[in-house]
């Protein structure tokens, strides 16, 4: 027994010794490193992360370290519990709803004006807050194929019998596009009508995937005729697959927009570096990289000129709004109730 206790004591004393002697060295090394939490698709070699890192490091003294985060909600939870020990300098991939969720729990740094070249659709997002910088955006609508037999001009057209079980949707409890659709319906119709509409739409759905990629996969495999996605989605097929048969559908209702934001938590260690990186993200070169790799629209003027993205018709959109968490919860609860009662 005493051997066992002695052994454990030895291990823990050794570990404590290394911990107290390593701390200073780690801090010195980290001075010039910007730790950025981003999604797997952003960090992947086909995503914008590596190209942005390379270009930024060429232009600045700072080093960029991307930390892959499976989910933004989880990153925010982690930031919340790590508090002062959190190592994140910058968080990417936040959307309007994440901002609402994190508002009460996490403290964010106020950002200076990082670009005066922001396009009008996104500039509205900066009027009501100054803690998050938008870095890409896209209106959301239904995407289909050109040979779709059904004429769709408005939300009500989605209820046509030909589309029964042919629409790939996302679960608003787990997916940001799913939540966008839910809010879009409640924003464009009076509550009573919205509930009736949701009940009918649920019967049209092929399924409610946990995320955007699941729903889009069903659509791509032709298991669904329509999917709720970004107006930029067809461009991906044109550029990557040379397939121009995909179209985003213009609706009579103004479309919701999805904006991706970046924010610097107050607990940042390299706050100056993080701010530099944000400034860089708002530059023409960085915006072009994000646009081409993320297939989202740039937030500054002229970045998409003379590219495939210039051909995208940006339909009439709803102004950006930050919703209260309570309101979002209420809509989600209504959706859950309908789903439960419909036996779906």
């Amino acid at each position, binding site marked *: 027994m005493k051997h*066992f206790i002695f*052994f*454990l004591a030895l291990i*823990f004393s050794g570990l404590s010794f290394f911990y107290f002697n390593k*701390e200073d060295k780690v801090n010195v090394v980290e001075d010039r490193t910007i730790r950025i939490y981003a999604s797997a698709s952003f960090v992947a070699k086909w995503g914008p992360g590596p190209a942005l890192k390379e270009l930024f490091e060429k232009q600045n003294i700072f080093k960029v370290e991307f*930390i892959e985060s*499976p989910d933004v909600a*989880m990153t925010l939870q982690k930031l919340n519990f790590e508090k002062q020990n*959190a190592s*994140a300098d910058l968080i990417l991939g936040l959307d309007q709803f994440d901002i609402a969720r994190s508002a009460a729990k996490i403290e964010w740094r106020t950002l200076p004006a990082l670009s005066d070249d922001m396009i009008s659709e996104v500039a509205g997002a900066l009027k009501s807050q100054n803690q998050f910088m938008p870095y890409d955006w896209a209106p959301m609508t239904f995407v289909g194929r050109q040979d779709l037999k059904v004429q769709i001009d408005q939300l009500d057209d989605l209820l046509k019998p030909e589309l029964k079980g042919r629409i790939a949707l996302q679960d608003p409890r787990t997916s940001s596009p799913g939540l966008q659709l839910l809010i879009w319906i409640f924003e464009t119709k009076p509550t009573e009508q919205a509930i009736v509409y949701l009940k009918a739409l649920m019967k049209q759905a092929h399924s409610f995937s946990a995320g955007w990629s699941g729903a889009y996969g069903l659509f791509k495999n032709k298991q669904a005729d329509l999917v709720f996605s970004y107006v930029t989605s067809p461009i991906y097929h044109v550029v990557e697959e040379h397939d121009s048969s995909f179209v985003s559908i213009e609706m009579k209702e103004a479309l919701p927009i999805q904006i991706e934001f970046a924010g610097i938590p107050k607990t940042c260690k390299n706050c100056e570096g993080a701010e530099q990186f944000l400034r860089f993200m708002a530059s023409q070169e960085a915006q072009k990289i994000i646009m081409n790799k993320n297939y989202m629209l740039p937030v500054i003027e002229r970045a998409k000129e003379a590219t495939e993205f210039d051909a995208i018709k940006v339909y009439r959109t709803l102004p950006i709004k930050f919703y209260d968490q309570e309101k979002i919860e209420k809509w989600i609860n209504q959706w859950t109730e309908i789903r439960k009662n419909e036996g779906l």
Partner: protein
Amino acid sequence: MFQAYFESIKYVGHLLPISFLRIFLGYFYIDLALKDWKFYNIGSGGLADIFVEALNKPALPAWYRLLLSEQIIPQWHIFAFIIIGLQFAVGISYIVGYVVRPISMIAVVLCLNYLVLSSVDKEIFFKLLISCHILLAWVGAGRCLGIDYYFFKRRRGMWW
């Protein structure tokens, strides 16, 4: 002690294959501990991610969720330090073959913890790992190619 280390092959040679399993598991734990230690020094990632992942796991038992959110997560640094220390202890013990039996029991507890914390797809792996630890404890795997043989020869008893 050095002589006893090699002498063990002669007297408990039937345990030799198990010793290789023990040494491999030791290497696995050291590697795991070093990775977690790196993240621990950064102050993020590694075990912190596992704790958050666990909180989002729907099948987590209610009592464990409460323990995690009320006790472990507010002091996650202390718990992470203990877990990393235990991982190092398991790794070193398995490689040198010292106090393998009691350490295997700690390894089982660590695995049970990971079984609850980690995602469903890793369950089979951790169950397999638990059976390996029980096997090592059962046969006293530190007695072959390990320091335990030296003490076993002199003192006998269930600790070796």
